[in-house]
């Protein structure tokens, strides 16, 4: 297995070296979607590459909860994207216009542009807990959001705050880590 233990440094170098490769409004299938739709798909797909600890779910049959803090087109697009999917074999429940408290109890939180106001409050509550916070604002990752989406030319790329991820108890797939840019205290550290 050529990739099982290849050095993380090499992989991060490659990831950093690729400038114009990440998806954009042009989706993976080549069709052009609006940016909100693409970002919504990203949020949904991050779930596929992240593992939650068992205690994140109250019961074995508990649904997978995605919350939208505030309101924006991405949140609206999530309705289409996540509505007819299951994540981790669980029914997906989408909480739109969630409060900070509601969002802090979800498994994934999309921090809308509107929700940025409550970002610090949210992060206070989610820090060190298995809640995948995703935002789309410059510098959000540095502030403590686990994944921050950003435009890079025609593509959508994402930054990962690795130290927050590690603190959260979530397990990020190396495949995800390979594609994202690491920010925060661990930036530049081999993954």
């Amino acid at each position, binding site marked *: *297995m*050529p*990739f099982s233990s290849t050095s993380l440094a090499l992989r991060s170098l*490659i*990831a950093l070296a*690729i400038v*114009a*490769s*990440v*998806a*954009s409004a*042009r*989706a*993976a*299938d*080549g069709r052009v979607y609006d940016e909100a739709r693409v970002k919504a798909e*990203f949020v949904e*797909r991050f*779930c*596929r*590459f992240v593992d939650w600890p068992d205690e994140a779910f109250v019961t074995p049959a508990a649904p997978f909860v995605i919350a939208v803090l505030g309101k924006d087109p991405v949140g609206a697009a999530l309705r289409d994207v996540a509505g007819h*999917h*299951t*994540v*981790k*074999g669980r029914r997906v429940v989408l909480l739109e216009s969630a409060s900070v408290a509601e969002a802090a109890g979800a498994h994934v939180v999309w921090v809308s542009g509107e929700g940025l106001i409550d970002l610090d409050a949210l992060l206070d509550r989610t820090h060190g807990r298995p809640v995948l916070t995703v935002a789309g604002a410059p510098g959000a990752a540095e502030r403590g959001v686990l994944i921050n989406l950003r435009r890079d030319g025609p*593509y959508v790329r*994402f930054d990962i705050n690795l130290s927050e991820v590690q603190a959260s108890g979530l397990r990020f*797939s190396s*495949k*995800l880590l*390979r*594609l994202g840019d690491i920010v925060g205290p661990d930036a530049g550290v081999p993954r």
Partner: protein
Amino acid sequence: MVALLTPTILVVVVAVGLMASFDADVLRRHLVDTTETTARVVADYSSADLAFGSRAESQAELSRFVQDARMLAVALYDARGDLFSSWARDVAPQPALEKRLSRAVERPAVHQTPAAIEVWMPVVQDEEHFGTAYVRASTAEIVVRQRAHLATLLLLGLLLAGLGVLVAFVAQRVVSQPILRLSAAAEHIALHRDYAARIPSGGTREIRTLTASLNGMLAAIEQHQRERDAAVAEAGRHADNLELRVRERTADLEASNRELEAFSYSVSHDLRAPLRAIQGFSRLLLEEHGRRLDDEGRDFVRRMAAAAERMDRLILDLLEYGRLGKKATEIEAIDLDAVVDDAVRHVGDLLAERRADVRIEHPLGRARGHHATLVQALVNLLSNAAKFVQEGVDPVVRVVATRPQPTLVRLAVNDNGIGIAREHHDRVFQLFERLHDSSRYAGTGVGLAIVKRAVERMGGRVGLESETGQGATFWIELPVA
């Protein structure tokens, strides 16, 4: 030998063939496994790339999955089946990758062709289908291996064939040649009956045993032959001995025969004296005192005289017969005409008395014999011819000479007498064999025995041709002079 090797070669070839086939099968299965694993790794590792559209990173990474030289091409197709990223080894021409998948890939799929193995592997992350990984592997290595197997097979076959030839060669040297030697030796022995010869030992144990047996047999034959030779020599000695004894015995017999003849001669001779007395006195009795006897008395005396005369005749014949046995006869060329004339003169009285007509067909020629002896024999034959005729018939006697063979003269005396039945022909030449009552035909029963003895003394033969009532022809054969 070939019969022995063929199955072996066949078994080895089949075994190696099966092994090659099995090996190829295993190799192919293993390659399929490897290709599937590679596809699984690519699929697993590339899910994020597909999910987040990281085409460039994917493109950069793909070649890293295929350090195995057998992998010819790798490609990723997105969820809609469009080519997402690809890598192809820069080797021998291979088919171009599909731009768009021609099939839906729900689960892993393997497609094998003689040249390649293709695997399609769905890219799934947390039950979400993001696309398809495709890997193509080359089977060239397997083909090469198969060729190597084929070469091994051929080499092995050649090796075995060579081995077979070698074994056959060795076997010929070890088995066939000693057998040929054996055969040649046996032929020599059979041809020349040379039982003293011995076959040189050699070859395998079995052949040595066979040789020893044959030599033993030869020794036995030789021994038997020696014993037989000794027995034959012994028998020869016995035969010699026997011959000697026969000679001695013959000499004894001849001596006693001579004694007997001498005895019979002297007896016959001595018997004549009293017989003469009987003859003389009976004649005197008749002449001097005949008148004092009556007719019956005179008849008795006459009969007595006749009997005495007949007895004298008999004694004379016996003496003659005996003399023929005793007397050495000198064989010389004789004139048959003279002999016959002499004989006719001897029996002239009898012939005249019987009014016989004697016809001699001169010239009779010459033969080897003894004049007086032959005269004696002819006298007997002529007198027989004159005597044995039907009453009232005048004898007609013919004497002729013929040549039954160039070296033989046959003197035949033919008559018109009573003849002799065929069944009696053998007996007539024996002593005292009389076919007829002496009262009808005078004779002593010695005459023809004398003829036979006389002719045989001269080295000739006698014979007879006759039928009852047809007359008789007596013949004498002598060598031509």
